[in-house]
């Protein structure tokens, strides 16, 4: 039997009392089998050191962890669930991004995701007008002022003046304006168009299940209110296709922005060359031949009688009629993004694939050089600034605006050309020249110009 010994303190003076609890049940207190000191029950637990980890079990109380400070960063491992990422300060967002694919970055605004050139239309802001800024009194089809913009019309649909205007909505500096000066009375077609090469639309995957949507946006200002019709024509050797959009002019003589998305055409495979692919067409009037068939608001076969069917406005049946456009953009996708502004130099270079005009501007300006072939003919090479879409048509100011310059000068009396996509051999006719001499063609006056036209 073990004994119980109560040992008084030899130096203390107070009395220690062992007190029984208020109970009717017999209790037994068993002391540990070791030499130690009993802990006070209401202490700080400061003496609870070296508790084996295996003995710390059970459920933690619902503490806030506010006092869990100075935790070593290396001990913060595992998965962060619902962390307060939104509260991160920007100064903590440093370091190198991991090589993730960004495949899950959805709903990112298109303006951020679209790289490179997005506007398929050239000179959509009407910046470039190599031919001139005004053409008055024309009745026939032609390119008159702003590069790449074509007025396709039957003569009887009216007489027009076309101008490159400084009037434009905010964000633009120019617009194309047509103004009827003699009212039309008949004629099938009267439309403003711009045309794209088929090889520049091939990426739309037309004729496949992956055919891409395109979105058109433009600003328009018209002298009367009502409905007008736009047609997107997909020109293809296997058969052209057509889809249309009716746009409303809500207020007269007021700039209005219009946008429309066209689905991809899964039926017709596009061509892939330098011939016509798309042409974008704002129809202005028709006195027959372009009406009588329902407007095609989904892709269908090219259909002449549907090209003006939905319009209620005629531009050209009154001399008070004006129609104005700028900010034309055609882009892949179903969102109309901000207009892609390009520098004048960029836009000019794009235009020069289709039209290039060399203006002398001053008398004596050198144009090209070559040799005198005979007493009446001098040959010279002229290289365009860029490769043209096809062999271009050569036109020129009055032949007397050109001189053959060598040890003397001879005024030119005729000009001929052998045109290729990269340059032209020019023949200049004069008289009394000395064969075998080198020569330069220069400007006899500031009005001298040469032009090369490979428009669609």
């Amino acid at each position, binding site marked *: 039997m073990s004994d119980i010994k109560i040992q008084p303190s030899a130096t203390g003076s107070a009395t220690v009392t062992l007190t029984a609890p208020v109970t009717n049940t017999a209790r037994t207190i068993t002391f540990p089998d070791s030499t130690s000191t009993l802990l006070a029950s209401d202490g700080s637990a400061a003496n609870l050191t070296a508790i084996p980890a295996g003995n710390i079990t059970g459920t933690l109380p619902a503490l806030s962890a506010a006092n869990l400070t100075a935790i070593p960063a290396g001990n913060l491992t595992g998965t962060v669930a619902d962390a307060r990422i939104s509260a991160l300060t920007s100064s903590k967002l440093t370091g190198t991004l991991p090589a993730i694919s960004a495949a899950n970055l959805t709903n990112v605004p298109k303006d951020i995701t679209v790289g490179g050139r997005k506007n398929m239309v050239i000179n959509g802001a009407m910046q470039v007008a190599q031919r001139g800024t005004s053409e008055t009194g024309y009745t*026939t*089809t*032609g390119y008159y002022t702003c590069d790449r913009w074509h007025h396709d019309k039957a003569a009887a649909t009216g007489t027009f003046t076309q101008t490159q205007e400084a009037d434009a909505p905010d964000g633009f500096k120019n617009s194309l304006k047509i103004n009827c000066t003699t009212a039309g009375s008949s004629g099938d077609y009267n439309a403003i168009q711009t045309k794209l090469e088929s090889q520049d639309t091939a990426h739309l995957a037309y004729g496949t299940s992956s055919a891409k949507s395109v979105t058109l946006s433009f600003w328009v200002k018209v002298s009367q209110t009502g409905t007008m019709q736009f047609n997107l024509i997909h020109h293809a050797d296997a058969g052209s296709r057509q889809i249309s959009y009716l746009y409303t002019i809500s207020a007269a003589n007021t700039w209005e922005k219009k946008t429309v998305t066209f689905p991809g055409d899964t039926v017709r495979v596009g061509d892939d060359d*330098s*011939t016509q692919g798309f042409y974008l067409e704002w129809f202005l009037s028709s006195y027959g031949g372009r009406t009588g068939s329902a407007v095609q608001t989904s892709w269908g076969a090219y259909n002449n009688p549907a090209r003006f069917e939905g319009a209620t406005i005629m531009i050209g049946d009154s001399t008070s009629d004006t129609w104005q456009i700028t900010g034309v953009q055609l882009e892949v996708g179903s969102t109309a993004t901000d207009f892609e502004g390009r520098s004048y130099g960029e836009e000019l270079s794009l235009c020069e694939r289709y039209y290039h005009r060399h203006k002398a501007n001053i008398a004596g300006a050198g144009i090209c050089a070559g040799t005198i*072939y*005979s007493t009446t*003919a001098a*040959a010279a090479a002229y290289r365009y600034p860029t490769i043209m*879409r*096809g*062999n*271009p*048509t*050569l*036109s*020129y100011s009055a032949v007397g605006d050109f001189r053959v310059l060598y040890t003397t000068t001879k005024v030119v009396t005729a*000009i*001929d*050309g*052998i*045109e290729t996509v990269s340059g032209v051999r020019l*023949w200049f006719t004069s008289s009394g020249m000395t064969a075998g001499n080198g020569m330069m063609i220069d400007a006899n006056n500031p009005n001298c110009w040469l032009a090369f*036209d*490979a*428009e*669609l």
Partner: protein
Amino acid sequence: MIIINAKYIKNIDTENISSIKATIDGQEMSIPLSEDNRHYAEILKQVADGDITIAEAD
């Protein structure tokens, strides 16, 4: 296009037909014999329609 005075032109050194000279909408032009040239295409159309003829080269 209003096309008048269309005439074939020979290259001076080879004597081969190289282009057509014509006045189109009042502007004198040299038109290559290329089917993807819009002026040449229009000349061919108007010739086919019987509206114009192209004079032989000198």
